[in-house]
């Protein structure tokens, strides 16, 4: 429902050092500023990169958040694959159409 809010927070973390600082100092306070469901809040806090991917977060946003939270490239890719195994196919957003994988 609030994929927009999830992506907005990640976008701002990517682009605004002041928001990154708030993540470091008061993560819960930062999360409270966005209209997030429990599941979304947990996925961002953990972080559960795979779940965020399945929720529909655009990879051009998500890969930077994964890096910020210490995921190397391979770990980021693996987290998305793991997310699909655990939570099923991507629910909404750019990546929902059925597509064959190589």
């Amino acid at each position: 429902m609030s994929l927009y809010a999830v992506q907005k927070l990640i976008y701002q973390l990517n682009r605004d050092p002041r928001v990154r600082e708030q993540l470091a100092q008061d993560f819960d306070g930062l999360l409270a500023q966005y209209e997030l469901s429990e599941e979304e809040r947990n996925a961002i806090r953990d972080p559960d990169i795979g779940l965020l991917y399945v929720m529909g977060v655009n990879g051009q946003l998500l890969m930077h958040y994964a890096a910020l939270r210490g995921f190397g490239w391979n770990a980021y890719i693996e987290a998305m694959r793991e997310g699909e195994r655990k939570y099923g196919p991507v629910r909404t957003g750019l990546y929902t159409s059925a597509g064959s994988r190589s």
Partner: protein
Amino acid sequence: MSLVFAGVCSHAPGIVGRKDRADPVLRDGLYAAFERMRLAIEAARPDALVVIAAEHFANFFMNNMPAICMGMGEHYEGPIEDEAWLGIKRTRVPGDAQLSKALIEEVMNDIDLAYAQEWKFDHGISVPLHFLTPRYDLPVIPVNINCQGPPLIPLKRCYEFGRALRRACAALPQRIAVIGTGGISHWPATPDSGRINEAWDRAFLDKFIGNRREELLAYKDEQTWREAGQGGFEIRTFIAVAGAAEGHTGEVWFYAPIPIFAVGCTIAVMRLRHEDE
């Protein structure tokens, strides 16, 4: 006609950032094609370079997502990415606010442009500039076509934008070069990152250099997504260049899938000065 150059190129971050991990033969071929393009632009003696790119949430988000936005700054900054990761140092790039304004006013007769008096380049613009204006001595006018956050602009409007840009150039005294950057097939930042659909790419490029409008506009996003990935939506930048070069055909100077660069690396140029249709 004051549109003096029109071409397209890839912009994937790996092209510079992971250059040491690519097949040297392919990489050097790509780099040579970029250099040939640089010299061709130089030979066209442009006063400014319009870069039609598809950015990746550097400046634009769904809180105000323009279908097409043109820069109107006196200068720009970029790249936003980590310099070591991208392999490109952050720098200030000259713009031309007066020329931007004149172009925007002309194009607005037909296309409902957003404009931006500041702009931070991401790899979508910084990678091409690294090769094409390495001394950052040519004024750049950035353009963004939203290829990330649906609803996306229909392909026909991208072609129309190119045509409007061409008319605007014709109405102005300046000599203007235009490049489109993006695609073609790729699955960036997804579990399929590195996948490339060479057959799809070659078929698209054939239509592009033939400037076969109807065939270019027949692509549907749903099918593009399945066959060419969400990165394939960036064909919008190529289609805008085809519109700018309407009535002209071109040639592919380089195409090769380079998996470590995560895209079929492409350099193609329209022959503007020789009416060949």
